[in-house]
């Protein structure tokens, strides 16, 4: 493996299908499908730009929804050691298989859907288990500096919210996709989702998503790209200025350790859900309605009596979780489903 670094890496150029019609022709997508479930990147320059922002040299990359493979080529050009593509649309698979051959095995394509990662039940493709994905990779401890892999791509829009929360829950438990160590997640999010992710206490969009993200990871905004470079475009066109896709990188924190009893880790997401369900309700009321008497925990944290759920920083939430689940009088009956 090491010898390859010295040789000149072949550059991969696109045979150029920058246009929707080409896409339709080539891959026989549905021509009238303007509101696609998935956006695809077709512009090679944009792809190179994006790939340069991500630090992929010598790393293992999981790419979700490569589509026509534009971003894949850019990543290959920038020195990714191995790329595993997870494509759920069967129409792109033959083309991606060609790319696989071209890249002499650096790129492998799997018929998989990132939204169906670790779904319970009989797993027929495109559902995939993270076991299979992480085969052959050495386990690295969480606090090690080295990142095992990177997850790159464009978020699938249809079930984006649920998928992402699942990823975060797995990150919390160090299980599933993250069972072999930390994996950096760098996805292109649409404008409104990015706002939700980057919100801070006091913003209107600050909610469970932001709390968990900031608690678990280091968040960086790498790049913003206008929607026009992505296909498909809506028939009516965009408003002015066109919305932007944000490239956000999430690196799980090295030193994150939630000190709660092991059986309670599963209850943390539900606990957070119940605390934040009603924004205008003071946190004391919410926590009392889960376990009576636990509002003294808020006093231990030094919070005022009528603090709202949206005023706490993620770090304070972490402390609250630890306090609550380690407290002997807490009543967990409502959290166990």
């Amino acid at each position, binding site marked *: 493996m090491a010898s390859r670094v010295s040789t000149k890496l072949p550059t991969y150029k696109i045979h150029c299908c920058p246009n929707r019609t080409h896409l339709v022709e080539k891959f026989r997508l549905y021509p009238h499908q303007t509101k696609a479930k998935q956006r695809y990147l077709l512009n090679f320059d944009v792809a190179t730009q994006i790939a340069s922002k991500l630090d992929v040299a010598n790393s293992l990359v999981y790419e979700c929804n490569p589509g026509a493979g534009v971003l894949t080529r850019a990543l290959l050009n920038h020195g990714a050691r191995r790329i595993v593509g997870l494509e759920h649309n069967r129409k792109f698979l033959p083309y991606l298989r060609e790319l696989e051959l071209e890249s002499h095995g650096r790129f492998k394509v799997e018929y998989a859907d990132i939204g169906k990662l*670790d*779904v*319970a*039940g009989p797993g027929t493709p495109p559902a995939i*288990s*993270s*076991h299979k994905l992480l085969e052959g990779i050495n386990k690295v401890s969480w606090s090690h500096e080295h990142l095992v892999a990177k997850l790159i791509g464009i978020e699938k829009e249809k079930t984006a*919210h*649920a998928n992402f929360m699942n990823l975060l829950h797995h990150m919390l*438990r160090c*299980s*599933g996709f993250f*069972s072999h160590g930390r994996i950096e997640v760098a996805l292109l999010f649409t404008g409104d989702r990015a706002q939700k992710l980057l919100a801070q206490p006091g913003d209107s969009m600050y909610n469970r998503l932001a709390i968990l993200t900031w608690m678990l990871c280091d968040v960086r905004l790498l790049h913003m790209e206008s929607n026009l470079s992505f296909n498909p475009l809506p028939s009516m066109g965009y408003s002015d200025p066109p919305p932007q896709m944000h490239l956000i990188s999430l690196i799980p924190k090295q030193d994150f350790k939630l000190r709660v009893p*092991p*059986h309670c*880790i599963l209850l943390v997401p*539900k606990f957070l*859900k*119940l605390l934040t*369900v*009603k924004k205008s309700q003071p946190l004391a009321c919410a926590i*009392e*309605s*889960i376990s*009576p*008497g636990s509002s003294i925990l808020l006093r231990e944290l030094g919070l005022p009596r009528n603090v709202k759920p949206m005023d706490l920083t993620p770090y304070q939430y972490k402390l609250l979780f630890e306090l609550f689940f380690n407290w002997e*009088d807490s*009543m967990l*009956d*409502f959290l166990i489903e």
Partner: protein
Amino acid sequence: MAQIVTVRSANPVKIYFSCSKHYLFYLNQCKGTTQCTKLANYVSLSAVQWSIPNRTKFLSQTNIAANVHHRRSKTHLHASKTRNHSNDEASVSKSLAVLEHLNGSEDLELFSENGTGETKVLTEVKKDGRSQRRNDSFVDEAARLAEIDAYLFCGNVDGAIQVFNRCRRKGHKFHVLTFNTILHGLAAKKRVIDFQVFYHNMGGDNVMANVQTYAAVLELYGQLKDVKMIQDTCVKMNSQGYDLKHIFQKSILTKEQTTRVLEAIRLVYPNYKVEICKDPQPTSISPLVQSLYKEDKTNIKYSTNTPKSFVQDVMKSFEEQLEQERAAFGTIKSVERKRGEPRSSEGVCKSFPEIQSGWKDRLTGSIQREIELVMAGNKANKRSKTGPFTRLLVPCHEYADLAVEAITGPVCSQSYGAPLNHLCWLVGTQVYNRYAVKHKEKSGVVDKIRSMYGQFAELAYDHEACKTINPRELWFQLERSMPYEGSIYCDVPPWPTSVRVLVGCTLIDMMIRECKIDGNMFNHKGEKIAPAFFHTYEHEHTTASGYIKAHPAVVQLYQEYVSNCGDISLPASKLPMLVPPRPWTSITNGGHLLLSVQLTRGHDKTAENLSALEEACKASKLNAIFDSLNCLGLCGWKVNGKILDIMIDIFNDKGSELLEIPGPELPKLPEFTPELIDHPKLYTAFLKEKSNAKKEIHEAHALRMAMVYHLSVANHFREKTFWMPCNLDFRGRAYPIPPYGSHVGDDSTRGVLRFARGKPLGPEGLDWLKVHLVNLHGQLKKASLQERVEFADEHLDEIHDSADNPLTGKLWWQTADEKWQMLATCMEISNAIRSGDPENFISHLPVHQDGSCNGLQHYAALGRDKYGGRQVNVLPSDRPEDVYSEVAKLVEKMCERDAANGEEIAQHLVGKVSRKVVKQTVMTLVYGVTFIGGRKQISGQLDSLGLSPSVVWEGSSYLTRNVFASIREMFHAAKDIQDWFTSAAAQIALSGHFVEWVTPLNLPVTQSYQRMIKREVSTPLQLVKIRVPAREMVPNVVKQKGGFPPNFIHSLDSCHMMLTALYCQKHGLTFTSVHDSFWTHACDVDTMNKICREQFVSLHSQPILEDLRNHFLKKFENKRMRQPLRNSKRVDVHFGPLPERGSLDLNEVLKSTYFFS
């Protein structure tokens, strides 16, 4: 105490009326004083003509100030004002002119708004281009009526008028009934000026005064002892055609109101006596029942020689029933008895009833405090909306009891809580029932019913007399014979879902704050006071729904309590009645003594249906239906003690799956171990197992609780006779109202019931009992009647053995399809034979006669289809024909044919198509099952045969296609009629109307499948979502067209049942039914069979399809549809010709033995 009645007018002059105790007037106007003085002069002039006491004093105190508020804000009305600014002078003089016109008329002189002018402007005004941000123009009428009524009940008439005016400002027009209630309220408070203003408003809104309005007027002036006004009113009444002698009959007055009106009339006519007028002859009696109503009975003379003690006993039970309905809850002892020691028997903790009464006390205190806050005008916490209803909750402790009892069952019996919207609705409904009963008590209804009931009961218990005397007419006569006691029809407008949810949520909110429990009750730690109930959220995907959960200690306590012969409290409307139910006389009167019931079940969405029903009722068209419901209700029931004991033993022991009695053991949840986190595969498997186990636990718990309730109710009524009031659904099918103790249930609930009245078996009775036994057994479906009797004779030993040793003998009765009813029949036959004289043995057992595939029978009769008719036993034959095996045979033939041609899937299925596989599909085909539904059913059957999944999948599609084709071949007439129905319904729905029709017994039916939207009701706890019909009432085309054929056939078969009931009652039989299964005593089965067939012939001799088509033509022909039907280009509604009739002779039914057998 100054009150303001705001009066608007279209011009910048705004006139405020303020009526104080000394009748001071304030005129406000900001323009020049000339107009002001003009107006003021007018006021003083007109005041002269008013007949108010202390006239001079009033005049001297008249104070005329002048300022007008140009409120340049909000309402659209103001837009008109600014527009009319230019012609100031003209408009002011116009207003004056109108006032002078009013002056000149003979009417009560009031200075009120120029009503006519205003309404014109109101309607003309456009909304000025501003979109109404909060849908101001939508008025939820039912909720507003409930609010007005609540205000009036507390005596707060001003609140009612405020709500009323608010709605009028939005443009809503009220019905004359609402006006009347407010007028009555004002009259009761003797507020003359307001009354007169209001009365004028009525005229302004173009609402005609009716008899009740005049009654209110008389009430007012009677109190003021104003003879002249009373005489004027009487004259006006006569001029409008209302006769003073009939005033009490035609209007609905409470007892107090009646006394006042009587006083008023007696002031003028001291010798006034009421004249009881006859009912007008109903305009259209259906020809089917004409023979029943031939005689014209003006005075029903009913006299018996029943002993006094009998009447006393009846009245005692009557009082018990009244008490049960008044308290709105009945307490039943639970039959559950757990073996083994309860965990908390160390004597540390208190028992559940003590804790519950502690909650009730605290809740009472909380309600009282809330009422004080509302009366003080506190507006926080949504009190402005809930205020009027909170004030109804007096006396507080009764309502607190109600709320706690209603919550206990659903929430405390398991740990996963109950959804909030359902709970709120429950509590709100209970509060409404209690309030309605209170209202009736206050109006004197209870006393009147008590005095009427004694005489009615004598008739109800006497079945022979029912042959000639109609209970409904007797009730009518009794009611009219006491005109001075008020009317028994005083009722409360029903509360819509939004109001119930609101009231319920207020009470639940208070309960959450007040009810406490010791959290460490089972923990052996120190006492820790925690709330007993919590409001949390459960998430389904991303939607969060509010739940009320109980503290785990509460759940444990309650479970142990119930399982040790605790008390269960059930709402009174779910318990059987202790006395015969009231006869149905109108849409909202009948059944229960005091509780409010509806003739047709339905929710908010069935509003138009109600208006059609009311019209039909007024025209006396529904008499036949009322009578048949009365007949069903007068059938008394008793509990079969022996069978009940056996069931309770099994229930408390281990339960028995064979006998369908759930046991006390619940399936267990899989355990969670920490190492599962490391193995993702195992973990996901564990999650799936856990969710399946949870589902099973919920189901098992629900089944067990349902059985507890059924058995406990049966146990409670063990020694008594009980009755079930009956009710219709929107199509006309009859159901008993209480769910517990009714014969419409599954085998175990039916097994414990038998008739209260016994009849000797007579010559045929024993044979019919044997046939009944074999029917229940289910083995000999194709045997003739004679063969069935022989089969029973062969098994006499087993019958005796089952009756003597039910649980220890040969257990032959457990091989039957319907086990518990089989056991009851075995016991009956055994007793009859052993008594030595079967013909005179008194039997109480109901014997069933079921129609074979009743829907197809009706279709065959409608289309006069000979071939189809033979299949379903419409034509006589020696043996019963079984339509399911015929279909199975046909399909089998098709399979063989295809297999011979080499089709693979047919080869797999040859020999596997049995009767069982196709039975369900054929049955549901009549009710419009679609291809996908049919395929699911067949695939389920094939699955249980054990074929491989791929064969099941392909095979079910293939078979479904074949089944449909063969049914179409066999019943092509039925299919043709069904197609005609579907296309007609689709066209009607596409044109934006609901499908509606009139059954042969004159019941108007409307299908109200429409688009429902979720509306949010904001309550103190959270926003609760309720499903209500969308405002525009858009019909749901798919449901309308799919639902019409089955609904129509259901309404037909209910007509058949009702006719049979009526004629059976005429012959003195006891009759009851479960839709297409008719029950009666063993000795009367022959008579009932004859009547059943005669009525079927009579029903289908009517031109049913032609009438339906004419009705559709009249109502819907040539309306525009919003899109054409498939396969056609027409865009307006057009009904094609009816399918052709066959050559079946209906009278053959009279000879068909197996039509109902």
